[in-house]
């Protein structure tokens, strides 16, 4: 049984669903400790006052917001907490939007929602979301910070995504990209279409392994055996190619 990270309530209208949250994702990147190269001892990070050079205990640390160069507004930890809002442990679903309309670019981190105590309200909400094809939008306060969240039916459970706000998402209009004077020709689009077709496959996440992670773990093994490790040479950059010729060669036509 996974460990829950939050206990609370999801409400829609006057109906309350007692829930628990679980992390849905975990990074499997190989993590290293910092060590001192000469003796292999662990590196410790110490907080040091930049003025008197002495170590500072955590209790003596406050948060500073820089309002102008070197001028800070000092906030105590509970003053920062005051911004969290007063919603406590309730995620109120205020709007329900069609699932397909939200560009996944808005989704940040995913949690699974499990039920707490009785399960009927949970089952009802999940079934109703699934039937309508909608996701509930609400706000969620976690570790003194408020998030916009989307709650949706996913397989047999509810999933909760924390979301980016609209001004945190860069739009194409914010970027200045020149269009080509002449677009691709019809035969080029057709050839590219064939290429897409020939490379088309059904997405199965299990087909893709983190080969980099494996290579790092392999490197660790080799080093442990005392092997000599030599860095690889980077590859030179490739030149842009003649579009039509490259497409023809890719789908096995022409030269």
């Amino acid at each position, binding site marked *: 049984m996974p460990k829950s990270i939050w206990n609370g309530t999801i409400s829609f209208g006057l109906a309350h669903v007692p829930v628990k949250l679980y992390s849905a*994702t975990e990074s499997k990147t190989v993590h290293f*400790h910092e060590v001192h190269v000469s003796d292999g001892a662990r590196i410790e990070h110490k907080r040091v006052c*930049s003025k008197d050079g002495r170590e500072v205990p955590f209790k003596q640390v406050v948060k500073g917001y820089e309002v102008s160069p070197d001028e800070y507004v000092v906030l105590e930890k509970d003053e920062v907490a005051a911004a969290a809002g007063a919603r406590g442990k309730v995620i109120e679903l205020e709007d329900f939007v069609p699932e397909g309309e939200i560009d996944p670019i808005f989704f940040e981190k995913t949690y699974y929602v499990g039920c707490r105590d009785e399960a009927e309200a949970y089952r009802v909400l999940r079934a109703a979301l699934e039937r309508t094809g909608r996701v509930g939008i609400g706000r969620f306060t976690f570790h003194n910070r408020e998030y916009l969240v989307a709650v949706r039916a996913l397989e047999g*459970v509810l999933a909760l995504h924390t979301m980016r706000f609209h001004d945190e998402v860069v739009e194409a209009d914010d970027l200045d990209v020149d269009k080509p004077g002449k677009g691709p020709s019809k035969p080029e689009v057709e050839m590219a279409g064939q290429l897409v077709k020939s490379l088309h496959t059904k997405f199965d996440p299990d087909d893709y392994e983190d080969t980099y992670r494996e290579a790092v773990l392999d490197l660790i093994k080799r080093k442990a055996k005392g092997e000599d490790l030599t860095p690889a040479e980077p590859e030179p950059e490739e030149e842009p190619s003649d579009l039509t010729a490259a497409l023809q060669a890719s789908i096995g036509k022409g030269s």
Partner: protein
Amino acid sequence: MPRTIWNGSLSFGLVNVPVSLTSAARDLDLHFRQLHKKDGAPIEQRRFCSKEDVEVEWEEVARGFEPDNGKQVVLTDLELASVQPRKTRTIEIEAFVDLEDVDPIYFDHPWFLLPFGESEGTRRAYQLLLKVMESTDRAALGRFVMRTKEYLVLVRPRDGLLSLTTMLFSDEVRPTDGIAPSARKPAKPKVDQAVAVIEALAVDWDPKRYKDCYRERLTRVVRDKKKGKTIKAPEEPKQPKPAPDLMEALEETLARMSDGKSKSKGKSKAAAAR
């Protein structure tokens, strides 16, 4: 113009499109610096050797890995760099998949891929890839290396540009085992009522409806503090008790909503503006 994080080429069959990568998300969070309460001086993080208790320069730091059962293995950054796959400057498209088959749970960080350089050929090749994906609702799966780590990525059209999302690997998404309640069908009349509540609160997706109230409040806290005001944390409200009768709660919700609609614009809009 936003910052370019990486440039290289997107390769698709034998077609190579020089591209640059720029983040599609901006960080608007308020960032704080740690200060020493006594004198207000910024705090620095310094590295010390835990054995000798002397400060250690960055050049003296290596990477230690502790296997579950065994001795610590130490790697230098140079040694670690040797696992970089050879093709460090290419995003190689391996397959095209239907976008609807990729659950957003796999999405990590969003980026834009932009044509790189002035060449007309580059722009045409970029446009070609964009067009062909737009017309088929398919996305390209590929791999590339950024800052020594290899990523699985999904390239798809977004607003007339190519977007790229780094993705999680399947074993980084946890199974839902033990989270779902025992599989039992909920009572149909309750689901019908819940659907009615959802339909009553249904709106189109418009990200501009939702403001980052936390960011606004925190900005206000900083401003008030600067003026010398006292800031008090609000008390935590009590957890609501689930209604003893779910059916009644849903019916009551619908009744109040239809009452509210005749008087005001509805609850949902007011809630969103909060």
